């Protein structure tokens, strides 16, 4: 199939789905009440963008994600390093980390709501916790993957512990942080938005949550379209970065 034919089919699939939705919504009040109406969703989007309201909310969500991501990534990498170089601590903490790892971190959101309230800090804490574990496991795997052979070679060449850290361990872990980047950025946004659902006064998640509580499907859809427009392209870009930076690993 040629690329053009493929594109035409893709446009037709989207158009027919939207068309079916629009027709159903125009014919039935129940459909309109439950799943909304595509034209109303578009109107909502225009209103959100036109009034600038959306940018205020986006800025809050991005801020939460960025703060949380930075804290989580730095702590995750640091803890992985410490536990790798101090085996005693690793034996002490491995069981606890293993247990916490079984629980999906996002369910901890209510804890942070109690601890930090409705503001930005509770969301940043949620994001930091999620990112911490992703980065910790990635860097840990990266440090483990530094093969004994490589270390032996470096030692024969006369590398001391500092040289080894600089030349081998840090490059290895940086690449593994990058390789987890796409996943962790996605989860950073997810964590921020879900935490906003549970209680917030600003952010994309709170926008959607408010619409939900008002039972307004059009506004919920409009909010989700904004998430789609922000997150999906970001994910594409990060996929490319990930592929480039990890090319040396083969697959």
């Amino acid at each position, binding site marked *: 199939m040629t690329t053009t034919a493929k594109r035409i089919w893709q446009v037709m699939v989207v158009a027919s789905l939207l068309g079916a939705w629009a027709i159903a919504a125009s014919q039935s009040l129940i459909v309109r009440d439950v799943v909304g109406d595509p034209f109303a969703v578009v109107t909502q989007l225009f209103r959100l963008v036109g009034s600038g309201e959306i940018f205020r909310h986006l800025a809050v969500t991005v801020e939460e994600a960025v703060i949380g991501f930075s804290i989580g990534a730095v702590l995750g990498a640091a803890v992985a390093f410490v536990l790798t170089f101090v085996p005693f601590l690793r034996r002490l903490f491995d*069981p*606890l980390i293993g247990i916490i790892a*079984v629980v999906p971190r996002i369910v901890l959101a209510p804890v942070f709501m109690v601890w930090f309230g409705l503001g930005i800090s509770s969301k940043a804490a949620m994001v930091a916790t999620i990112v911490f574990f992703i980065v910790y496991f990635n860097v840990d795997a990266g440090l483990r993957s530094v093969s004994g052979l490589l270390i032996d070679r470096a030692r024969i060449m006369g590398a001391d512990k500092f040289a080894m850290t600089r030349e081998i361990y840090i490059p290895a872990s940086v690449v593994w942080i990058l390789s987890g980047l796409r996943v962790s950025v996605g989860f950073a946004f997810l964590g921020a938005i*879900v935490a906003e659902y549970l209680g917030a006064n600003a952010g994309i998640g709170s926008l959607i949550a408010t619409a939900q509580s008002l039972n307004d499907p059009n506004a919920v859809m409009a909010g989700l379209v904004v998430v789609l427009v922000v*997150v999906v392209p970001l994910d594409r870009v990060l996929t490319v970065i990930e592929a480039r930076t990890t090319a040396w690993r083969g697959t």
Partner: protein
Amino acid sequence: MSKTEHILSGPIGRVAVVVLFLAAWEGTARLGWISPFFFSSPSEVFDVIRVWYARGHIFGNMGFTLAEAFIGLVIGAVLGTAIGFALAFLPRVAAVVEPFMAIMNSFPRLTLAPLFIVWFGFGMAPKIVLVATFILFMCYLNAYTGLRQVPPELIDRARLWGATRWDLARDIYLPSAASWILTGLRASVGFAVIGAVVGEYIGGDSGIGFLILTGQSRLRIREVFAGLALLLIAAIFIDYLLRRIESYLLRWRAEASASGHQMT
């Protein structure tokens, strides 16, 4: 390694570390070094669980949450595997649909929860749909990858032995994809529980997530911790069960290296 370290790394050591952690938590709470409002204490959390148990809160809510997770998991797994097979065998359709699947896959699907609640109300249905959307993509990706990773020699050889398309699907493609799907499923179970619990956070009137959320809204951290502890126990139990099932079904695979030198 010294003797203490050796003991620590064994199973007894693991339990000991957890007990030690709980003791430290309890001790610091009793001594008033940490705020009971923010951190509660193991004994308080245990009390909450005991009261819930006495009032019959636990089994109903746990059953509710696990039922959502399980039904969603089954629906998602069946649909996802079916889509994976369909796309692997219909490359023309795959070419058209693949970009949509990629977009949906990189979309944080958990954020769809409010939408499903508006659509399906506050009962089990929106959580089941949320879990199913979650699992569907994981199973689709695993099935699709598994099917495309079948070594061509296997197919060639089977064709030379006179295998029909049906033979290939049953004897080669399905078992080959099964190992991917099963591995994916075990990873998915955690996500299924998250889907159910987060769905309950966002709108619901029963389930473990609802218990936790109620605790949050009353600012009672001990109730939040109690709910999380129940989830933790359930998660560990389910994970153990699935490991056993997986290692039985996939006993033909080489054991993952115990030395911990795995790449991912």
